[in-house]
């Protein structure tokens, strides 16, 4: 009897604590808490991207996409100015953890955009979700982040960019069916993005009947690739597939051309390399180098994409410097639409946003974005993928331009 009483008391306490988690502030009650924004105070939207180092173009391009989205809604939402608190994550796990912790520590962070790199998102998203903050990623493509097997701690994570489960399959299709290369060697740098993408490509390539001779690995800071490339040359592959980041990929491109036995071996990289910085770093060897990428041609994008590009050029006096600006713009628009849908204003002009309601709104909203239709599945995958392969045509960084250098060669 005593034990039963204790058990009942325990259950009651548990129920009480669950109920206590639901907070009511002003006119809003929400299970995960409510953010109150005083009259005239800004709606603070957090962000983390790579904003320094060799991959800066990747993150800066996305930041600009978000800034244009804010401008397109007049810089205000429901009478409150929009404020972007952007952190630099350095495109690595430590940076992602630090940036997410900083953003999560700000009680006024309504929602977070970014990052560009899966390495940063993998530790960053759970830290944010622990505080009930939704993270809309704008370029991190590692399949595990939106896989059906993902852990509960990623429940607050969604992305307006495709999964590399699609990219890897498309790359394998191109290598096997178009290039008709019978054998490949892959190289990754241990990052979730590179490791998972090369694995998906390798698995699909094997299923199609191709031969994966070996799956090599490097450290992102490696500079001397010659011993590795000499080792690979002994296997005589038709193609080397290395979806790694700018500095290491540029070294592979440079050093492969001078490695005996690899003179005719085709080189293929991934989506992190679409920038003028990569052309500068890779030098003359970049000509003829190909990367798998989502199709950015106007006919494959949403109907407002050309207008966006004009706005981008006008705002920053240059064409887009990388390839995920449209995904970032759509991510920002998704956040804005979700806030609009759930926010409530009291008679004093203060704004109230329920965190769980915001998460549900992000996962429910559907619209035609400039990167294509946006509609999230239950695991946070909100984007659709159209494959393409791009080839670099010149080693002059000034010639960089999506569609020109590199130019689309497939489909």
């Amino acid at each position: 009897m005593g034990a039963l009483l204790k058990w009942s008391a325990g259950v009651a306490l548990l129920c009480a604590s669950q109920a206590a988690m639901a907070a009511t502030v002003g006119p809003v009650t929400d299970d995960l808490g409510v953010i109150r924004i005083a009259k005239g105070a800004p709606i603070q939207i957090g962000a983390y991207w790579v904003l320094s180092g060799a991959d800066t173009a990747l993150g800066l391009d996305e930041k600009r996409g978000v800034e244009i989205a804010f401008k397109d809604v007049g810089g205000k939402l429901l009478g409150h100015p929009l404020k972007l608190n952007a952190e630099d994550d350095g495109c690595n796990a430590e940076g992602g953890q630090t940036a997410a912790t900083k953003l999560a520590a700000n009680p006024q962070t309504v929602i977070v955009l970014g990052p560009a790199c899966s390495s940063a998102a993998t530790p960053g998203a759970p830290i944010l979700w622990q505080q009930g903050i939704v993270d809309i990623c704008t370029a991190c493509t590692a399949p595990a982040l939106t896989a059906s097997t993902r852990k509960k701690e990623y429940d607050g994570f969604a992305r307006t960019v495709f999964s590399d489960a699609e990219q890897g399959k498309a790359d394998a299709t191109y290598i096997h069916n178009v290039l008709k290369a019978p054998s490949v060697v892959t190289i990754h740098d241990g990052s979730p993005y590179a490791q998972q993408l090369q694995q998906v490509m390798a698995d699909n390539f094997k299923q199609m009947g191709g031969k994966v001779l070996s799956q090599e690995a490097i450290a992102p800071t490696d500079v001397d690739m010659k011993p590795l490339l000499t080792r690979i040359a002994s296997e005589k592959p038709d193609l080397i597939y290395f979806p790694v980041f700018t500095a290491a990929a540029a070294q592979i491109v440079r050093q492969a051309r001078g490695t005996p036995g690899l003179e005719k071996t085709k080189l293929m990289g991934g989506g992190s390399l679409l920038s003028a910085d990569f052309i500068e770093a890779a030098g003359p060897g970049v000509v003829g180098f190909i990367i798998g990428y989502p199709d950015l041609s106007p006919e494959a994008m949403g109907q407002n994409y050309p207008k966006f590009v004009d706005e981008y050029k006008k705002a920053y006096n240059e064409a887009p410097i990388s390839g995920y600006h449209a995904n970032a713009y759509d991510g920002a628009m998704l956040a804005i639409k979700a806030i609009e849908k759930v926010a409530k204003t009291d008679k004093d002009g203060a704004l109230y946003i329920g965190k769980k309601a915001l998460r549900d709104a992000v996962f429910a909203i559907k619209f035609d974005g400039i990167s294509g239709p946006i509609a999230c599945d239950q695991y946070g995958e909100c984007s659709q993928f159209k494959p393409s392969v791009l080839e670099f045509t010149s080693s002059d960084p000034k010639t960089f331009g999506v569609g020109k250098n590199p130019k689309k060669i497939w489909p």
Partner: protein
Amino acid sequence: MVGRYIARLNAVDVVLWGLRVGVVAVVVIGTAGTLIKGRYNAAQWFDFVMFGLTIGSIYAQIALGYTMVYGVLRLINFAHGDIVMTGAFAGYFVAMPLDRSGFLEDQPVVAMAAVLLVAVIVSTSVAVLTERIAYRPFRRVVGLAPLICAIGVSFFLEQTFRGMFGSAVKSYPDPPWQRAAFHVLGFNVPRIDVLVIGLALLFMGLLYLVVQRTRMGTAMRAVAEDGEAAALMGIDVNKVVVFTFVLGGAMAGIAGVFYAFVYKQVYFLMGFTPGIKAFGAAVLGGIGNIPGAMLGGFFLGMVESVGPTLFLDGIGIPAPYQLRDLIAFTLLIMVLIFRPHGLLGEALARKRA
């Protein structure tokens, strides 16, 4: 005798012996397995060795800076890798206009001399300023403060260059004469590798002569042996310390240009990794010992280049190049277990004793 030794073994000894036997077994079995497989031809083995000698010669030059400063001041100058970076950047800003004008292609000897000269001037100036402004106030401070100061200087240099020149990777010129190769006995010998190894040996030889045969070099060795006694004998210790930083800075500038000409990239963090590895090389050779630093550099370069293939291919470990730092530093630890003062450090230690 053996029985008595075994009886005296404690748990730490057992672990150390286990480690030694394990590493030797991996090396022997792996090497035998790789050679039996016969996957690589002679030209490829030759290439592995050349790559190792090239990066090793650069590590050796950088290691000299660590070892000389340690010898004189007992300070680990963690900013030394970043002084290499300053030299590489200075060389870049000379090499690029020379390349654009075609001078680097038409007059390679004069152009390379100009690039090296400017790099040496800049890196030496930075090294001397670092000593004067940051390290000298800590000269008599006991404890970790000088080391922390050196780490601070490292961050300061990195972030200053980042602020001045941006964080993107800059590409060094790649003239055709550097891309060409000599063909000797059927082997392919890249010209840039020969140049880097040859000049590195020449400059290290010159530095050795300066330290061994000049009055200032003798004073440097005297300060390294016993600073207070040297001061009592009338040696100006400040001058000797500045001279040490001049020599180390000059070698860092040369190493920075060579590193950038081989790997073609400069950016603000480029000095960190080679700096750490060169420090490992200096410890391996026997920190404070100049020939030891050179030997340590070449050893580390060779192990990094040849080791993964030679030791791990034969035992079927996939992606062995991911483990190259592990192999290099495991062997470093092994050497230090057998010879705690490093490869050539014992003579110096005995002399001091």
